[in-house]
């Protein structure tokens, strides 16, 4: 009886909290109107009291078929990321990015030690064995962040009401991240939506397969 009562109180509190949460739906499109996947959307509350005390969560970036999965991984600053290797070959993961320089010596399986990302910014991942492998970790200074899906949309369902600076980052965007900033005021029970249009640079990657450019003597 007492357990049921406690559960009921918890449910009421949760519903009350949800009732006071604000919603924001963000759509990111390219210049042709097509949804942009893998764009990181960051909502920074103007009132720091709205930045709830969120504990960084452990996270992971896998390596599958000699690619980083996911291609873009947003995390909260201070988070620890593991780099499991699901391939049956070894990888040597590294980053030269000023935000976090590190190197994981050649390893297979889940043997690599986790890496803590304690500064906000963009970390570019590579593999010293497989030159075409590239991945991105976006270390967010705000706990309110998310990544767009294949349709270029993402929804925040539990933001504290208030004023936010919302900005976008994408690995191929053709302008500075700061230029995407917008102020958006969110109120409880009044879902908001916003749309960004990003110019994307052509994504040139080190080719995984190369043709035979050299002539050969018969």
């Amino acid at each position: 009886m007492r357990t049921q009562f406690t559960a009921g109180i918890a449910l009421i509190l949760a519903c009350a909290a949800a009732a006071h949460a604000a919603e924001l739906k963000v759509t990111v499109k390219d210049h042709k109107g097509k949804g942009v996947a893998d764009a990181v959307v960051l909502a920074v509350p103007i009132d720091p009291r709205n930045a709830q005390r969120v504990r960084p969560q452990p996270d992971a970036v896998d390596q599958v078929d000699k690619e980083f999965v996911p291609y873009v991984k947003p995390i909260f600053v201070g988070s620890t990321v593991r780099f499991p290797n699901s391939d049956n070959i070894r990888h040597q993961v590294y980053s030269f990015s000023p935000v976090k320089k590190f190197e994981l010596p050649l390893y297979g399986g889940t043997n690599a030690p986790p890496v803590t990302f304690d500064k906000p910014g963009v970390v570019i991942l590579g593999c010293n064995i497989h030159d075409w492998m590239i991945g991105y970790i976006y270390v967010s200074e705000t706990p309110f962040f998310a990544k767009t899906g294949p349709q270029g949309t993402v929804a925040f369902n539990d933001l504290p009401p208030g004023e936010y600076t919302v900005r976008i980052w994408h690995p191929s965007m053709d302008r500075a991240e700061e230029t995407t900033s917008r102020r958006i005021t969110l109120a409880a029970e009044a879902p908001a939506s916003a749309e960004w249009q990003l110019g994307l640079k052509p994504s040139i990657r080190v080719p995984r397969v190369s043709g035979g450019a050299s002539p050969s003597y018969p």
Partner: protein
Amino acid sequence: MRCQVPRTFSGAIRASLPAFLAFCAVSHTAHGDWTVATSAALSHDNNVSNAHSYASVVEDSSAAATVSVLQLMQVGENTSLAAGGNLSGQAYERLSGLNEASLEGVLSLKRKWGLGAFAPWARAGISLGRADYADGYRSATIYRASLEVGKRFDERVSLWANYGFEHRRASPTQAEFYGVSGDVFSQNGRALKAALQYSLNARISLGLGSLWRHGDVVSTTAAGTYLYANYKAVAPDPTFGAGAYAYKLNGTTYGARLGVDYSLSAHSLIGCGFQRLETHAQGGNNYSDSVPQLTWTYRF
């Protein structure tokens, strides 16, 4: 295209083939740093006979396929050893005597100076192979050694160069011919190659390559035509018809290749290329080859 398996599929390849297939099977199942690649090509050579005189020029088309299996072993922070093999075959549309199957074992040591895709690298390699032709007198054991250096400048541009020696030791079946050696198909050569690859966009890349080669070349004349030079060896070459003769000469070849590749997926690409070779052989027996080519490559 008629495909004829070499009639003289020698014991060497016959014995090596199961080992190679076992090697492939192990590479598929083993937990190791294996790389497997396959490629195929259709090409047309407007001077397969490497002939100087127009009357002796023979052109033909061919289809070729290769399977490569390599195991990569990291032996230091930036040093890796690769060991493996290539199994390949080529079939000609008309000159079935040139159909061949070959098996090659390769060993190479690669060093990178630094971490990442843009670090310069060098690779030293040796290989031992056997090429068996349908017309068995062409069959040879092939020894190669090479030194390669390269550097990727950014995501678009990559440059590399290769200097290599090749020694082909043909089956000693060719008798002396009028006091001149009949060992035409044993050859030595050294070559310098350089290549530049430029990615136009995410799918299309251009390749530009050049070649300098100096050493033995084989030029075949049709029945009733002869080379008047101090050739190093001469032998009948029935691959090109009765009365044809193959001459071994000293020559220098200059070549260039321009190609375009299109990525079908992360693993595969198709390409087309055009190769032009100009050979200056002793006695003024110069000849040229033009080879347009369609290629397909798949890397697992």
